[in-house]
């Protein structure tokens, strides 16, 4: 079994826990809405107080994504985003900021880049962790081997359908944190009633022992964040931010400064939900 890799991500999450504060992770698609936007968007998210950022590596067939992230991925690909550019955005960001950056995406673009090369280059670009929702935890898989060789965290997911024995296994192979999908569904889904989600999160939280537990999918507002972090170590917001970024960029009348300020304020507002 791989051991938990100490990283800037784990120490950031540890420091928050010590202060009794919850974590806010923000997801945004690389190269969205256009190639010039990403570096500024990342800085705005950081300025708003996100505790870590997930930069999405676009894929043509993202089967765990709802419409907002599907569309953002298609738009980024049409704009010409490549893995090399995504890694360059990561490098530029991590040179300027202490905020941990993760890459999230699908197995195939990583495989075509070269699995080992990908983790090597992610590491040298300052990336702390990688989340690949269609690559299942398996200590013998080339993905997990390369991640552990290059000391990159592999964040694994759990869902409301995951049985207890598998929670243990996932906790064992996950590093950085364990990502709880709030409901059975794709990203951007309406998560519905909070109570059953909180009960499930409490159960997972009790069960796992090696990793912090963060929750994502369908979290859109500071109230959502506040509610979810009552049973988890933090919350992750993706589709809502992607929607906002898209709306700002589609508003030709809005000056760029105002677009970026809108994003920053949105993140700040969400972050307020993590201080209980």
């Amino acid at each position, binding site marked *: 079994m791989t051991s938990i890799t100490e990283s800037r991500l784990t120490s950031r999450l540890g420091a928050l826990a010590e202060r009794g504060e919850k974590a806010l992770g923000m997801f945004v698609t690389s190269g969205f809405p256009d190639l010039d936007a990403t570096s500024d968007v990342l800085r705005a998210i950081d300025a708003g107080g996100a505790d870590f950022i997930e930069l999405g590596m676009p*894929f*043509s067939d993202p*089967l765990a994504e709802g*419409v907002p992230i599907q569309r953002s991925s298609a738009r980024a690909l049409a704009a010409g985003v490549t893995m090399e550019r995504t890694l360059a955005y990561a490098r530029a960001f991590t040179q300027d900021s202490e905020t941990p950056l993760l890459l999230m995406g699908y197995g*195939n673009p990583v*495989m075509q880049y070269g699995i080992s090369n990908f983790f090597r280059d992610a590491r040298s670009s300052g990336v702390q962790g990688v989340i690949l929702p*269609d690559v299942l935890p398996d200590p013998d898989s080339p993905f997990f081997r390369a991640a552990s060789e290059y000391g990159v965290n592999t964040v694994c997911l759990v869902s409301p*359908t995951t049985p207890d024995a598998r929670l243990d296994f996932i906790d064992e192979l996950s590093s950085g944190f364990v990502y709880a999908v709030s409901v059975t569904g*794709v990203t951007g889904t309406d998560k519905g009633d909070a109570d059953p989600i909180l009960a499930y999160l409490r159960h997972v939280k009790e069960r796992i022992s090696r990793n912090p537990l963060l929750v994502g999918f369908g979290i859109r507002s500071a109230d959502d964040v506040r509610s979810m972090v009552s049973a988890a170590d933090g919350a992750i917001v993706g589709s809502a931010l992607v929607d906002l970024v898209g709306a700002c960029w589609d508003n030709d009348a809005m000056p760029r400064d105002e677009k970026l300020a809108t994003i920053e304020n949105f993140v700040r507002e969400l972050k307020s939900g993590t201080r209980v």
Partner: protein
Amino acid sequence: MTESTATYALPDVRGYFGDFGGSFVPEILVPALEELTAAFEEAKHDPSFQAQYHGLLRDYVGRPTALTFAERLSEHLGGGRIYLKREDLCHTGAHKINNAIGQILLARRMGKTRIIAETGAGQHGVATATVCARFGMECIVYMGAEDIERQKLNVHRMQLLGAEVRPATSGSQTLKDATNEAIRDWVTNVRDTFYIIGSVVGPHPYPAMVRDFHTIIGREVKEALEAKEGRSDPDILIACVGGGSNAIGLFHPFLDNPSVRCIGVEASGEGLDGRHAATLTLGRPGILHGALSYLLQDSEGQVDLAHSISAGLDYPGVGPEHAWLKQSGRVEYLSATDDEAMFGVKLLSETEGIIPALETAHAIAGLARIAPDTAADQLIVLNCSGRGDKDMQTIAGAL
């Protein structure tokens, strides 16, 4: 359905055929796939399941399907003796129903109440809608918006059978996107929903399970050839390959006999230097729809759009077992263009009075290339995977 033969026993327990296959899916689906694997293993060894499955194949589908000696086609091509395995005579008009029957019986056994499927040409959608009507189950079929246009007749059939046809409007709006949508539905409704996949694609155990529900094709060929020709194994088997289900159903019972030459024919669309769907011929290993197999993709690993005149072959992936059979050299893969397929449609129609599906027509085009070089005593079996009624509009437009 039968146990894998003694020497050819793939996939392994992890669902791999050599380097290919496996399970690349969101975590949400892992328990569902494990449950399915267990239910399928159990059903395989349950005589009552077997009796139900074979009973329906006989009384509802109309099996065994005929093995027709294609006398005039054999003469015309001037080589060996050509037989047609008549899957076009199955209820609903294609082989797809063998698998739909098997999977709906499993769904019922597992207590699932809602059925979803993806479809390209609409044949698998029609087969699924048919078995759902037969068993009174809710049925939702995802179909690319573009395919809804070119296979209108099958859309009407599915609707008449009580299914809801949901257009997949993302991406290329064809089979690839319909499959994405079906997987997203399954991820969302996994507790009560059974996903009936239409070809030997997807995560483990689907490629093996769908195959096993189609090996009846090859096993019936063995029996019928024995009766007609005094030998069960022919010299050549030939079938079209989209995802690869009709081809593997024909080939699988013969894979242990190296003297049976197996040939799969992919769609090369406008030609190998134009838009095509020749995944095994020109693709590279990659991950799509839950499995590692050959894939049409760009250098960044973004999936390319496929093209074929035949909606059922218009898919940038292929079943992982075919990837393995190509890599191991056990099966040869050729390709045929849109124009060659049209030639194939005419050839079979005019020589045998059988209008084949456009998918099948690719196999006929491949056959026309190889048959003239065979000896008169050689036996060739072509899988006539479906009938051409559904394609009449496309065929009329292209002729």
